[in-house]
């Protein structure tokens, strides 16, 4: 199988933040911690504005794993990068190493105490008994153990964010790009969703 991956289609993402909300709700992520967020470039520039949803990309050669001084990271058989919060010392090295800014640190108290690292788990929980209260409290929901996929991807209204087996989502994306039939220089509804093979004839008398 299968290496679990996320893929975000910048042509389709409408910056609705549905994925962010779904993640927050599914995992009951504390205030101030954003496991997923939407990044927009050229905000407000017509035709040039692009958004992309970013979280932990579950790297095949994850820099966070390489730099962790207490070796609290592990990779599951499905290619999901997870960590043990009981072992994490909250040093923040992983945050510096990660090119996506995925590791998050809950802050509390008057002096901004930095807690243990929290990040996207691909809705795969963590090293506690699956579907237990302890697992949910520390790592959030374990949807993979329920035969589901991450809530953010399954919730995405425009299907910009795809999540799952890398081969499968690559096939979905490839088919989508073929349907569009154009490069990235054009934008809009037709680019994102394709055009009908046989456009309907305009009714007589209608303006073109």
């Amino acid at each position, binding site marked *: *199988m*299968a290496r679990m991956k996320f893929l975000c289609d910048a042509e389709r993402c409408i910056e609705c933040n549905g994925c962010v909300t779904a993640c927050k709700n599914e995992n009951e992520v504390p205030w101030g911690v954003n496991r997923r967020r939407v990044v927009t470039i050229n905000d407000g520039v017509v035709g040039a504005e692009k958004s992309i949803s970013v979280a932990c990309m579950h790297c095949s050669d994850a820099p966070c*794993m*390489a*730099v*962790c001084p*207490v*070796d*609290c*990271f*592990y990779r*599951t*058989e*499905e290619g999901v990068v*997870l*960590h*043990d919060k*009981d*072992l994490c010392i909250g040093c923040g090295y992983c945050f510096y190493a990660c090119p996506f800014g995925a590791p998050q640190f809950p802050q509390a108290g008057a002096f901004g105490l930095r807690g243990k690292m929290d990040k996207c788990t691909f809705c*795969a*929980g*963590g*090293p*506690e*008994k*699956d*579907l237990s209260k302890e697992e949910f409290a520390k790592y959030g929901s*374990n949807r*993979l*153990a*329920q*035969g*589901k*996929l991450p809530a953010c*991807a*399954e919730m995405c209204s425009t*299907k910009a964010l*795809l*999540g*799952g*087996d890398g081969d*499968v*989502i690559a096939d*979905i994306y490839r*088919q*989508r790009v073929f*349907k569009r039939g154009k490069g990235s220089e054009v934008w809009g509804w037709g680019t994102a969703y394709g055009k009908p093979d046989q456009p309907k004839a305009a009714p007589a008398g209608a303006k073109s």
Partner: protein
Amino acid sequence: MTTARRLMLAVAAVAVGLSACGERDQVTVYKQGQYQGKPDTKPWENDPGASLYTSSKWNKGDKTSWESAVRTRNLAQNEYTRVE
């Protein structure tokens, strides 16, 4: 000194002289540590009925059937196959 010996000396001098021109890795290679935390269970080791509201079905402990269930779920993200 014979010609053969001179030739050998010349080859040795060239070899020693050029050995300084060798290229070495300038980049630090990180050696990944061994995971020190608690072991985790596999998703397919769970009973599909262990949680509410799941439509996926697989045989407990059977990785292949779990993968098949997840794959079916994965393909539901392709709206082209859903509408056609």
